[in-house]
């Protein structure tokens, strides 16, 4: 187990270095840079040529952009290793670690609630469809989940706003200062993934119910609870976790559309802003952080396999 863990963590470090290198190279190959963006947004496109040259030189010095590329890269890496990345270009008075510390809990809250919501709905739906396979129950639940699956979260979001805010006047259209603000973004994100999860649940449940040990359990006179929810459910969770794990990771690093529609101050809005404004330090950190979260989640999923299926051993 320990050996497994240390090997996996070792690979993770190597992968993260590759991710950072690739991001750094792509970032510098992409057209445009932060200073140009700043010049556009502050209207200073031509102005006083003299002042522009002076200011750009000053800004380059400030952000270390006048140094050779490999020094710039090593500086970022050192910052990341010591969790002190310095200020973002875009938010000159906020350190990047501060941005992540503020925004990550927001995205995490949204991710956990919406995944919990979709599991709570999808798992019973999937079980129902599997147990009542090829009956009207199966068709209905799969039809519903298909619909859910084919409506993008941002479309659902618009319907939610129209219904709950403009029609019923129950909820504000957006915000993130009161607990009720969580409801619509969670619904929009959670309902959308019900379909996918329910279909996985159904397939793996059908598979599990066909196994010999289930037939044996039925034959021994096991109750529905014991056979289906006890034996079959547990063994059908492995495919489910394979799907839910990465999905959780994706939501944890921020959801661009939902965040911007509901004014949620999560990671997604920072990441898009960083990409749009070529905010190099924030862009670097966010890519590496994204990769890190995904890899950690995969590791957790792998560890859960062993927990769910004692036959799996980590060597």
């Amino acid at each position, binding site marked *: 187990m320990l050996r497994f863990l240390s090997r996996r963590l070792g690979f993770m470090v190597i992968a993260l270095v590759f991710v950072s290198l690739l991001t750094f190279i792509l970032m510098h190959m992409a057209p445009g840079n932060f200073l140009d963006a700043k010049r556009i947004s502050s*209207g200073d*496109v031509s102005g006083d040529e003299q002042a522009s040259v002076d*200011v750009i030189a*000053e*800004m380059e010095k400030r952000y270390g952009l006048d140094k050779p590329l490999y020094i710039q890269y090593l500086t970022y890496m050192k910052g990341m290793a010591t969790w002190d990345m310095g200020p973002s270009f875009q938010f000159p008075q906020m350190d990047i670690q501060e941005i992540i510390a503020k925004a990550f809990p927001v995205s995490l809250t949204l991710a956990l609630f919406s995944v919990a919501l979709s599991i709570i709905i999808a798992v019973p739906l999937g079980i129902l469809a599997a147990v009542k396979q090829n009956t009207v129950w199966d068709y209905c639940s799969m039809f519903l989940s298909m619909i859910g699956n084919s409506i993008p979260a941002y479309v659902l979001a618009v319907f939610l706003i129209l219904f709950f805010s403009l029609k019923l006047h129950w909820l504000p259209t957006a*915000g993130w200062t009161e607990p009720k603000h*969580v409801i619509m973004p969670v619904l929009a994100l959670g309902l959308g993934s019900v379909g996918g999860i329910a279909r996985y649940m159904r397939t793996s449940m059908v598979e599990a119910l066909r196994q010999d040990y289930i037939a044996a359990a039925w034959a021994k006179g096991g109750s529905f609870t014991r056979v289906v929810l006890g034996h079959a*459910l547990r063994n059908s969770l492995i495919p489910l976790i394979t799907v839910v794990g990465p999905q959780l990771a994706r939501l944890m690093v921020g959801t661009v559309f939902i965040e911007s529609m509901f004014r949620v101050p999560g990671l997604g809005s920072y990441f898009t802003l960083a990409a749009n404004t070529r905010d190099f330090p924030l862009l670097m950190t966010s890519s590496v952080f994204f990769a890190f979260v995904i890899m950690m989640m995969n590791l957790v999923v792998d560890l859960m396999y062993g927990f769910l299926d004692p036959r799996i051993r980590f060597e």
Partner: protein
Amino acid sequence: MRKTWVLLLTLLVTVGLLSGCLPGQSKETETKDPAPTTGQTEQKTEGPKKGGTFTSFIINPTSMDPHIYSYGAHIHRMALSEGLVTWKSSKFEVGPASAESWTISPDKLTYTFKLKKGLTWSNGDPLTAKDFEYSLKRAIDPKTWAGAYASYQGAGILNAAQFQRGEVTADKIGVKAIDETTLEIKLDKPNDIFLMRLAEVWGLPVHQATVEKFGKDWTKPENMVTNGPFKLKSWTVNSEIVMVRNDNYKGPNPGNLDQIKLFLNAANILAYENNEVDSVEVTSADIDRIQKNMPDQLIATETGAVQGFWLMFGDNQTLMDKRVRQALAMSVDRAKIAKLVSKDTVAPAASLFPSVVGGDWSTKYAYKYDVAAAKKLLADAGYPDGKGLPEITLLISYNIAATDPFTMAVIDEWKTNLGVKAKVENLEWGLFSQKRFAYQPADFAGMFNFSWTSPYPDAINYIRGNWGLETLWADGTKYQGYLDIQNDKNLDAATKSKKMEEYRLANASPEGKRWIELKAAIDKETDPAKQLPLYQEMAQLRLDAAMYIPLNIAKSFRVVKPHIKGYEMNPFLIGYPMYYRSLYSTK
């Protein structure tokens, strides 16, 4: 079996614990002040009622420092901080703020401000002339972040430019506190709009002790000390800002509202219709519906933002003949397009001066719509009825898709009126920002889209602030040499600037050279009255050169709830209020 339930339970407990991270429960960024107690809503006196809340949107600020350029600086100017002087209305007349009076020396070089007695900061500390000396020097200092972006540039304080270039020390800057309530500002030459400029964000004071104690964290709500009619209560980055009345405000321009709440993202008319906000910007997609359903709540203003197309340089010489450019500029019926295609969501602009700068600039230096003359110019240039002219490319960035129908109509006008073919190339802004100033190949004849506004109504800034002719080359191929100097990593900033200046002087077109001469002559001239004819010549020269083709002026549309009064739109800041202090609620 048991393990499964343990797993599910763990999940539920985690979710339960996480509800601790729910919005509204982490109040770390809020100050601990109790709610303001000054809301005497039962006032029977005339004039604005006190109390109430105003809720709206603002462009997401990336910093809350008045001396760092972002919308945070504007929030300071509009609510949190107060400079020596202020603008009295959207006409930008200057009125007293922290300074109750001022005198100007006969040579117009020395301004002496008398501060109002007994002024305090939001924490109760006295506000003195020393605070203004510190703050003005901080705003000028490029180390604060980047001086030029903090909007100071060109206001003309003595030795400020020399200090920015590192030639003199800060104590040589012409700003000095004579005593507690007297501040002296010296200029390097007379500037008729200096007082108007002083009301910009760079003229706002910051509390020295706070800035020095907390460094960049001084802008956090729990640390921030300001001197304006409102103070910052909370700032949830990317989400919302809440400001409340500053009870320690002793200046002449107090606010009326108890609270101002500004949302920083997802500006949406739906929030207005759901009564969550009191005002919101109306985009062109919603204009028709709003005009029909709530015309009494709609307010609009023409802004100072002029849009059009900017000449690009390279191997292709087609557009280097100014008669071709003049023909393009003269053959577009802007008024018709603004009315029929854009349905009056933009105003036509035949001039690089918007009408909001006042005077006759916008009518005097404007292109006449004259198809016959344009056809003749094109024929004289060797392209009768557009024959032989290559297709012209108009470079735009997809961010400005909202004005696209206008551009398409312009292309259509060129085709019908002149027989000139043109097409749009729409790029992601990164590509756009790179390509627009790049050297173009032989098969490319084009112009890129620009939009720019001066932050204050001053015709001169529409000459000096942007759209200069110094880079109008005698022939397009000269541009490469200029780029080579600009991109030379081995030159220090000073040498680079000098070389660029020499290169411009040697290789600019006759109009460009004259432009440089006029600029130099103005810089030598100290009497504003004698500068004026020179500026007028520059405006005429630029009109004639047609390096920039103006097309339209942006308009700002907003809806404001009927119970909110005193909303005066700022035409130079996309329709935000001039100041939040003038707003009041009758609810």
